[in-house]
């Protein structure tokens, strides 16, 4: 017990400490890419560190598919820190002693910001499956409204992994004067057919659950647990690498054994792990949000409106870029990151690209890795030096 307490104290001193989410009602109408206008919307967000006098040291963290606003620090009731605590905090690569860090739960998600589980003001019932379809640019637009609320005129950097990197790239094209740096990690300019295929299998799993009720499960007091758990299990496999699964689980058994003459069922460790992950996820994530945001991923195509020419697209950007990939990431492979990098070079933009060796697949962007930490930290500490006028 005392060991646990001291572990937590150690974590606390190395983290931003106790944090509390904030909530804001954005009253300006938000016109979505699909044409629907949200007259107002709620955003839940967290901030770490202090905004400087010039309001120039703000970093926006963009979360991915299942992420939320709780990127760093601890809640009193939860022993686990925020999802990117390894990277955000005092002295960490995204240094809360030097930057004012903002992370917002995006609309359409399910952690307190307006989404499918929120009540539709027109009907008084949850939006459910009727929540309007979203694009990454809608998240950017909503983030821009929050930015104005926080009195920030220009982000020092917009940082994100996976779908978060897509938002950072979209920021650079939609609001080129509103960010100095975009950090694009384990991302892509568009999904491959294989990626869309995995997303569709996940959606089908959710919709096949009888408790899904065509998306109106909240009115029916039901939750499509099994479908959502299955969707997560599929996704989870694609976020890990074969090597890592082999190292972590191999063919180890959780129950039973494979000797001849035994009739009791055998359970592999990987089965148990995946089932646990799926069940846990289905307890806190909303099925309609999962469908909505996987579609947002599928629809993302950075250069579509620029004649499908990424070089022409990136010519609109004014910020500098850092692009990061991970060797065993097969969901958003290093080749996708290199395409981003090559397009930026051809467009004459400042860009650096690092390819990190890792066994952790797509999830690597969330996990500790010395080289990744040093590279991201080195890049951002130069930015902090410039903001603080250090030569």
């Amino acid at each position, binding site marked *: 017990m005392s060991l646990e307490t001291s572990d937590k104290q150690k974590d606390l001193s190395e983290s931003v400490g106790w944090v509390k989410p904030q909530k804001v009602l954005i009253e300006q109408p938000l016109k979505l890419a699909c044409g629907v206008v949200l007259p107002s919307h709620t955003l839940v967000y967290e901030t770490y560190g202090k905004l400087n006098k010039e309001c120039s040291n703000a970093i926006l963290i963009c979360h991915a598919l299942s992420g939320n606003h709780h990127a760093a620090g601890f809640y009193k009731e939860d022993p686990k820190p925020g999802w990117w605590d390894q990277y955000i905090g005092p002295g960490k690569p995204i240094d809360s002693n030097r930057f004012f860090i903002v992370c917002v739960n995006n609309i359409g998600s399910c952690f307190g910001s307006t989404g499918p589980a929120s009540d539709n003001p027109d009907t008084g019932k949850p939006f459910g499956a009727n929540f309007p379809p979203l694009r990454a640019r809608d998240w950017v637009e909503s983030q821009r409204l929050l930015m104005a609320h926080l009195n920030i005129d220009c982000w020092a950097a917009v940082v994100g992994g996976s779908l978060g990197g897509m938002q950072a790239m979209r920021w650079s094209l939609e609001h080129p004067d509103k960010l100095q740096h975009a950090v694009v990690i384990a991302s892509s300019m568009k999904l491959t057919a294989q990626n869309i295929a995995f997303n569709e299998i996940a959606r089908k799993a959710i919709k096949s659950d009888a408790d899904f009720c065509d998306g109106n499960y909240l009115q029916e007091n039901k939750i499509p647990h099994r479908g959502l758990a299955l969707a997560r299990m599929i996704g989870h496999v694609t976020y890990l690498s074969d090597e890592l699964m082999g190292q972590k689980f191999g063919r180890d058994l959780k129950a039973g054994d494979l000797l001849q003459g035994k009739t009791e069922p055998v359970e592999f460790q990987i089965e148990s792990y995946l089932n646990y992950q799926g069940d846990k996820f289905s307890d806190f994530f909303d099925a309609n949000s999962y469908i909505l945001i996987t579609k947002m991923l599928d629809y993302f195509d950075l250069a579509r409106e620029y004649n499908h020419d990424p070089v022409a697209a990136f010519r609109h950007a004014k910020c500098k870029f850092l692009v990061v990939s991970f060797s065993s990431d097969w969901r958003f492979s290093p080749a996708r990151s290199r395409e981003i990098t090559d397009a930026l070079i051809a467009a004459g933009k400042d860009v650096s690209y*690092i390819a990190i060796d890792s066994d952790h697949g797509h999830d690597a962007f969330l996990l500790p890795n010395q080289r990744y930490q*040093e590279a991201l930290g080195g890049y951002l500490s130069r930015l902090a030096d410039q903001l603080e006028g250090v030569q």
Partner: protein
Amino acid sequence: MNHNIDFIEQWIEPGSRVLDVGCGDGALLASLRDQRKVLGYGLEIDPKSIGSCLEKGVNVIEHDLNKGLKNFADQSFDTVLMTHTLQALRYPHLVLDEILRIGGKGIVTFPNFGNWRTRAYLSLRGRMPVTKQLAYQWYDTPNIHFFTYADFEALCKERNINILHRQFLTHGFPDRLLKSVWPNLFTETAVYHLSR
């Protein structure tokens, strides 16, 4: 071995696009950015060197040169630089072609194997030279080609590469003086400005 090659800055147009192939810690690119306002990118594979570039704010692309330079379009740079790397690549002649395909002009530097120290080492000791300039044992060296600047110029002639400028560099008092009389004997590092 660390000869000052700042003079190449005068071969590079202010504001032009520069690709430094094998950019090391990015010092040259940082200087070109600050002095000549170039838009520069470095290619590098060593993690430590890449880290140094990031800290300097130099654009650095993690890139394995053995996989070629096909990512880069024809004539997409004004100048392609390659310092002390040619001797470490599998096919230097093809790399030269690539440099002049991607860049309007190329600048390459390499250790001159015709230097008297390496010649003396081989002929008197009968062993492959290990000098300040070539500080590796034969079995564990990145330098897999040994050539003199005369060999290099013969290759340029054969492949129709124009030599716009060349500079021969050396350390120490008598060597610097003697270099003008016997350049191949007294040059440690050769620097070439090329075009096609």
